[in-house]
């Protein structure tokens, strides 16, 4: 168990609902859930979730910390916002799902080899380098996500699409060499670092 995870278990002493409210984006809103199930029924990826959203809210209230923090369910969320649009009680379901994924990750409990989790990491690593997403590099890193051989195969398969995108000026091959970024990458990285520190302090309960 990671140190932080251990610390959180001790800090909240079984009050998982409070832990979620304090640490998960929009976690407070799930207090309004009345278990109607419209979010679960509205999710286009619903059948792929181990626990759909309304079930997760139920588990959180029941203090089922291990079940919630060991599932890969919320990584299935594609931010279509169907659930938020239909929720009769204003629960910010999409945000809570992403918040749970983030919290799980911070605690070092994110599922291994979960494709969305992997992609999110690639996206983030790509973004923080220059403060702008380098789509060419991101695309390639995605191709090679599952090894070199797979990567070549995927690249060949998508060759035509790549060419078409280049022609339409949707992809710039020059991005391979450095690529574009924000004006002050060092300042940007400092900012990200600071944000990480603030988040860590908040979770540890050290913020004022």
């Amino acid at each position: 168990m990671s140190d932080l995870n251990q610390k959180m278990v001790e800090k909240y002493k079984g009050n998982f609902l409070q832990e979620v409210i304090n640490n998960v984006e929009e976690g407070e809103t799930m207090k309004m859930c009345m278990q109607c199930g419209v979010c679960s029924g509205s999710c286009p990826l619903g059948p792929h979730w181990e626990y759909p959203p309304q079930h997760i809210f139920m588990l959180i209230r029941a203090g089922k910390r291990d079940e919630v923090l060991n599932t890969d369910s919320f990584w299935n969320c594609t931010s279509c916002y169907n659930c938020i649009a239909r929720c009769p009680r204003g629960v910010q379901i999409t945000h809570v799902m992403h918040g749970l994924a983030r919290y799980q990750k911070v605690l070092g409990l994110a599922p291994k080899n979960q494709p969305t989790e992997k992609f999110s990491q690639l996206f983030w690593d790509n973004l923080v380098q220059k403060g702008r997403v380098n789509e060419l590099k991101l695309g390639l890193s995605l191709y090679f996500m599952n090894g070199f051989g797979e990567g070549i195969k995927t690249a060949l398969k998508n060759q035509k699409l790549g060419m078409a995108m280049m022609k339409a000026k949707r992809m710039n091959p020059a991005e391979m060499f450095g690529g574009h970024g924000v004006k002050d990458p060092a300042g940007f990285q400092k900012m990200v670092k600071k944000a990480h520190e603030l988040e860590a302090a908040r979770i540890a309960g050290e913020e004022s």
Partner: protein
Amino acid sequence: MVDVVATNETIIVVGGGISGMTAALEAAEVGKQVILLEKRPYLGGRVSQLYKYFPKMCHPVCGQEINQRRIKGNNNLTILTMAEVTEITGDTGDYTVNVKISPRYVTSDCTACGECEKVVETEFDDEFNYNLGKRKGAYIPNKMAFPQTYVIDPAIIGTDEADKAKEACKYGAIDLDMGEETLELKAGSIIWSTGWKPYDANKIQPYGYDRFENVITNVEFERLMDPHGPTGGKLLRPSDGAEAKNIAFIQCAGSRDINHLKHCSRFCCMASLKQTRYVAEKYGDDAKSTIYYIDIRSIDRFENFYNDVKSNENVEFIKSKVASIEQDENKNPVLRGVNTEGAVRYANTHDLVVLAVGMEPSVDVSEFPVKLVLNEEGFIQNDEANGGIFAGGTSADAYDVNRAVQHATAAALRAVQVVNNISK
């Protein structure tokens, strides 16, 4: 000419549904002078549009009859139909109420023989049946309409049809020259009993009421089951006229929902439970009802009614707010969602879906002829700032008949106290 005497000891009741009738009668029976104003051509309001009412499953004609007898036996009560309030000025104990009376074109000499209706051919959407059927341009609004007096639709005035109707009347009861009248009435206190209207189901986009013929509302269902209704009491699917045998009821359709009505209307669970009884009574084992619900609210003694329905094998309960409805190639609605008891995903096909829509106030916030304290949903609050004007029944909140009538009786008591202070 309508001739009415009113003083500042008079109580005016606006709206002649079950609540308004009750308030008016309670006040008149303790000796107060009461004027009851009803917008429609008849009394009874929306209860008269039900097939039967819970908990006793009697026909609305029953409660209506009792009230009619009370009305006939009382000299203190004046009833004006087709009457609407346009303005209220003044204060507690001294109100002036302006009333507009629309022409009925038929006088009280009418015997409801129906000869005029026979000769008129033009048809209109029948509002009594929530536009599910047609009525003639000369019509009696419903079988038990009180007063039992015909109405000529203003749309046929000036046409041959109107002349034909007049000729057909043996009693000389048709007066085509009748015009709109305005009255200025005094009143010491006013009871506002204008009731409710069903929430607009078109706004509940995922349920496709506007797109799918076989998705209807609970008020329409009442009309379909009524032997006096547009289908003669047969449960016919709007799309093909086939008898529906597998019916879904969706609870909280547009209720308890920040996107629609925020409140619980309290009666819709009972209304759907009741409607499964209609199905069971009519079709026995040949038909199945399924109720999709968040939680069943059959408050206090209605629990027995709920348990009784639950014990019927042909009624299934699925704990789920339906997420969306689609339509298959036979125009059957397909309901999608998750049963939260066991998290079971479903796609259930039914031949008819009934949306249990809730109540909102019938009078729009912008239409009140006087400033009243309303809540967020437009229901009238019990507030001193309203002076001598009191809500009675569902203009104050969503109620079933029992609660609406209790509330209206309380309103009558308040109004009586106001005019008692004047006569002192």
